[in-house]
């Protein structure tokens, strides 16, 4: 489709007997942050490698900025900025040397494109002579992002940019992405962390190589609304075991300081308050993890 930043049609890829991707289709529009959410092994990195032309699909096709990932791969390599999941920088080069190196790969000068990275790079500037290998996790991510942006790409691919980074750096990183998006650049980003869904314009949930759901976070939550109870006991482990024996309780899972309980439609929440050791029972709206669990469960059964 014209105007789509990414257009994926029925892409599959197997490694031996493992189906890494099984009929993936999705579209990313210009100017949106599109999140691919799923656990390790879901197929996220395989999809990124196909879109960035590092891997050929077994079947199906995809375009990036209108270019076919197989026939027009050289165009995509120029157009795309790619931050792979593993630390992609040279640890023995300094911060500024890494940036210059990546600029030179694309035949551009850091000074010509500095406006692309200035807001991020200025945070790193006090450490510009430090070797990249000696940076903290959050600073490494920022430098890797600068290196992916320095050739002024038309689209940004970020494969798990926030994995292993602490909560403060993670939040700062998403602030940066929101800022970049304002320039109109589409951003395709993957993460295993469901709470990051709220920072994306649209998301797809992926598991075992298949897309489970696609839409805005609100749409997905709305489509999957269901009765959910949060229960807290004096001892949540004891309460969890007790809840699983109650008729009408479909599943009970620990979820932080509460236990999340899915029940049959007509279930009366007060039944649970009567269980010994239960302190609190309340009706809550499912969050994206609850939805993911529900859909995963449906897929298994």
């Amino acid at each position, binding site marked *: 489709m014209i105007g789509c930043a990414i257009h994926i049609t029925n892409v599959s890829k197997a490694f031996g007997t493992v189906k890494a991707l099984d009929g993936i289709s999705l579209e990313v529009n210009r100017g949106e942050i599109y999140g691919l959410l*799923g656990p390790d092994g879901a197929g996220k990195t395989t999809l990124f490698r196909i879109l960035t032309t590092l891997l050929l699909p077994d079947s199906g096709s995809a375009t990036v900025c209108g270019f076919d990932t197989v026939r027009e791969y050289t165009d995509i390599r120029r157009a795309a900025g790619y931050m792979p999941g593993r630390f992609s920088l040279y640890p023995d080069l300094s911060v500024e040397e890494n940036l210059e190196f990546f600029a030179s790969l694309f035949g551009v000068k850091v000074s010509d494109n500095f406006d692309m990275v200035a807001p991020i790079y200025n945070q790193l500037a006090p450490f510009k002579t430090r070797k990249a290998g000696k940076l903290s996790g959050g600073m490494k991510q920022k430098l890797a992002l600068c290196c992916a942006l320095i050739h002024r790409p038309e689209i940004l691919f970020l494969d798990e940019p926030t994995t292993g980074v602490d*909560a*403060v750096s993670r939040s700062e990183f998403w602030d940066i992405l929101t800022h970049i998006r304002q320039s109109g650049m589409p951003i395709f980003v993957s993460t295993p962390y469901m709470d990051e869904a709220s920072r994306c314009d649209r998301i797809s949930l992926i598991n075992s190589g298949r897309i489970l759901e696609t839409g805005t976070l609100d749409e997905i939550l709305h489509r999957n609304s269901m009765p959910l109870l949060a229960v807290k006991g004096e001892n949540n482990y004891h309460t*969890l075991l007790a809840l699983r024996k109650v008729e009408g309780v479909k599943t009970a899972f*620990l979820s*932080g300081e509460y236990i999340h309980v899915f029940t049959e439609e007509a279930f009366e929440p007060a039944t649970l308050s009567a269980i010994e050791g239960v302190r609190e029972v309340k009706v809550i709206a499912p969050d994206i993890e609850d939805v993911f669990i529900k859909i995963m469960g449906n897929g298994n059964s």
Partner: protein
Amino acid sequence: MATADVIAANRLTKRFGDFTAVDAITFNVARGEIFGFLGANGAGKSTAMRMLCGLSTPTSGSGTVAGYDIATQSELVKRHIGYMSQKFSLYGQLTVRQNIALFAGIYGLKSKEIKERCQALAESLDFTKEMDMPVAILPLGQQQKLSFSVATIHNPDIVFLDEPTGGVDPITRRQFWEMIYKKAEEGTTVFVTTHYMDEAEYCGRVSIMVDGRIQALGTPSELKQEYHARNMDEVFRRLARKAQRQ
């Protein structure tokens, strides 16, 4: 053991040159407690944990783990703890059975006990054909459950979990916490670090380290109240934003 505390740290300090990585931290962890040890990258968590595991000698201050002095009885400390890290825990080329036997042997179990534990683990993890498969081909979630089981195979007084659940799917993650709760119920103390604040909510108490010091310590509910925060993420961000270190 004289007290019910499995960890007692008293002004525990570690300096590297003129850099104070851990700055006089004092805290106690009780038997059977699930204790969350939080902090930003570089706050000093790993250094503190290495001291508690008997892998690094404190510059000053003192501590006991499982009743043994971490400075003078570090070998005894090591024998009474379990340790699991996301980065390294199992040998991928060895089968499940071989990994269990290897770690159980290192922890000093007899071959008869090892056989029994293998059997018991196969049942509790619901592994049948998996027992003779190389660990590397198992899904990540199963690897992590196995890794936790191996780290606690000698029924240690305390198990240290270093970011144990990164990247696993939500169902497996909840099952993993259920294993942790079960183990704690059986009397094993659990000491866990994580970057993900929703995980902090599973812990009985949590501490938050900033620049080498423990800045906050309490139950998740207490901390949320104290910092007028809706969740632990807000508590953490409020504290960690004050960090001076880079």
